[in-house]
């Protein structure tokens, strides 16, 4: 590692180690109740036990399936409506008030009413993930489409591209940086709402397990699953950055 990399990453790494060390000491010395906050070394041990057991993959798959299904539906709908609303004043005027009415509602508040109509189960959970992830994609797509430079649109027009070709070959790629910014916000929201929905309505999944472990006073396992979630968060972010770099190699040039 060169000195620039050391300067960049060393302080942050030390801060993390210091925090973990502090936690370990607080817990082991008995300053905080060890039963409520086991030291990180113990949580790590538990994590390995959980990961090796057969009970690991099922909840993980449950959570990821729900999250990605909701996220994918939200992205497709958000981009489709965003392009339509960004391109057509009439469609924008039709849907904008409706969108602005639903968008500001903190989405967890909609879970209880949705229970009434769709029952306490997967249907409601999926709907709430879609609702939460939809709006950032929608809003950013509309902005992205509207900000496409008029020169670019006129270029497509002077070469007599059809409306469909203009949309697919010029508008969509030109708006992609903004669209992906929205998708990135939505990814975090999708995970958050998936966990919350599982806590309230689930019979499986990581959110359900964390709450279940807490109620059963299996504190170590509870923390182990929280760590799993943290790792998922970091991994999703890294995956997104990788996709973004692949999709937008021209960005920032």
């Amino acid at each position: 590692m060169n000195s620039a990399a050391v300067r960049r990453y060393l302080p942050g790494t030390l801060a993390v180690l210091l925090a973990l060390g502090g936690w370990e000491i607080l817990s082991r010395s008995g300053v905080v109740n060890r039963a409520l906050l086991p030291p990180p070394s113990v949580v790590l041990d538990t994590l390995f036990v959980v990961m090796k057991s057969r009970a690991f993959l099922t909840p993980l798959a449950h959570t990821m399936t729900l999250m990605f299904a909701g996220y994918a539906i939200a992205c497709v709908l958000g981009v489709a409506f965003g392009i339509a609303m960004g391109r057509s004043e009439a469609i924008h005027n039709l849907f904008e008030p409706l969108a602005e009415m639903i968008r500001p509602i903190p989405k967890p508040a909609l879970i209880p009413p949705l229970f009434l109509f769709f029952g306490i189960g997967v249907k409601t959970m999926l709907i709430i993930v879609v609702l939460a992830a939809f709006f950032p994609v929608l809003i950013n797509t509309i902005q992205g489409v509207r900000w496409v430079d008029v020169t670019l649109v006129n270029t497509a027009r002077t070469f007599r591209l059809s409306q469909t070709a203009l949309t697919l070959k010029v508008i969509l790629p030109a708006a992609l940086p903004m669209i992906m910014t929205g998708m990135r916000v939505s990814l975090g929201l999708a995970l958050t709402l998936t966990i919350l929905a599982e806590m309230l309505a689930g019979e499986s999944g990581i959110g359900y397990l964390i709450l279940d472990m807490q109620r059963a006073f299996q504190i170590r396992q509870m923390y182990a699953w929280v760590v799993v979630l943290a790792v998922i968060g970091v991994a999703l972010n890294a995956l997104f950055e990788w996709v973004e770099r692949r999709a937008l190699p021209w960005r920032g040039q």
Partner: protein
Amino acid sequence: MKSISLTNVQKTFGTGPNALLTLKSITLEFRVGEFLAILGPSGCGKSTLLQIIAGLIPGSGGDVSFGGVPVSGPPAGMVYLFQQYSKSLLPWRSVAGNVALAFEASNGDSRARIRERATGYLELVGLSGFENHYPWQLSGGMQQRVAIARALAANPRVLLLDEPFSAVDALTRVELQSLILDLWEKQKLTVVLVTHDVDEAVFLSDRIAILSRRPAVIEDVIETAIPRPRDAITTREHPRFLALRHVLMERLLSRPAVK
């Protein structure tokens, strides 16, 4: 033979008390195969006029026809080359991919054939070997060459140039001017060039239409009558070039400023 005719073309931006009359009344005929420059001060509505000719924006009054057919949208056989090449090239497409955009309104060719055709047009503008580069990897002058290759790839009869050389450095400008002249002769194009650069208008064109300040009318149409082929250095020393340049500079500079 007429290529494009403009009859009493008008353009007003906005409505009510804030309406801005930009083009008062423009009547002009373009001959097939000529190189015509529209010369005028900045902000007089030259680009607006060119965009109306191209069918990119509608006029507020009057008629535009191309080959006898009224223009109501971008017509086939006419391509507009933008001043801002950096905003006109698709940054996510390679140089060859950008040129290929010109073929995509009329699809049907195989990928390999499209690639081959794009390569051919890049060769015309001296960019062989840059097919796989991206626009942002090229200099401004090379980017404008890509835009020129793409315009030619649409196989136009008329090329509309909107101050295409104003954003590049002086030497590159001279090179690009020679390239355009060369292509105009080889491809038998009709070229309409909008510019505020007297030197450029005189050097390149057969006729110069002088636009007044806003609201614009055509003050005069002058035959340059400078022999061809033109040379980047000697043509600029030709007595007729110098005389025309003198007269036009005087006319552009002596006019009272807009109140």
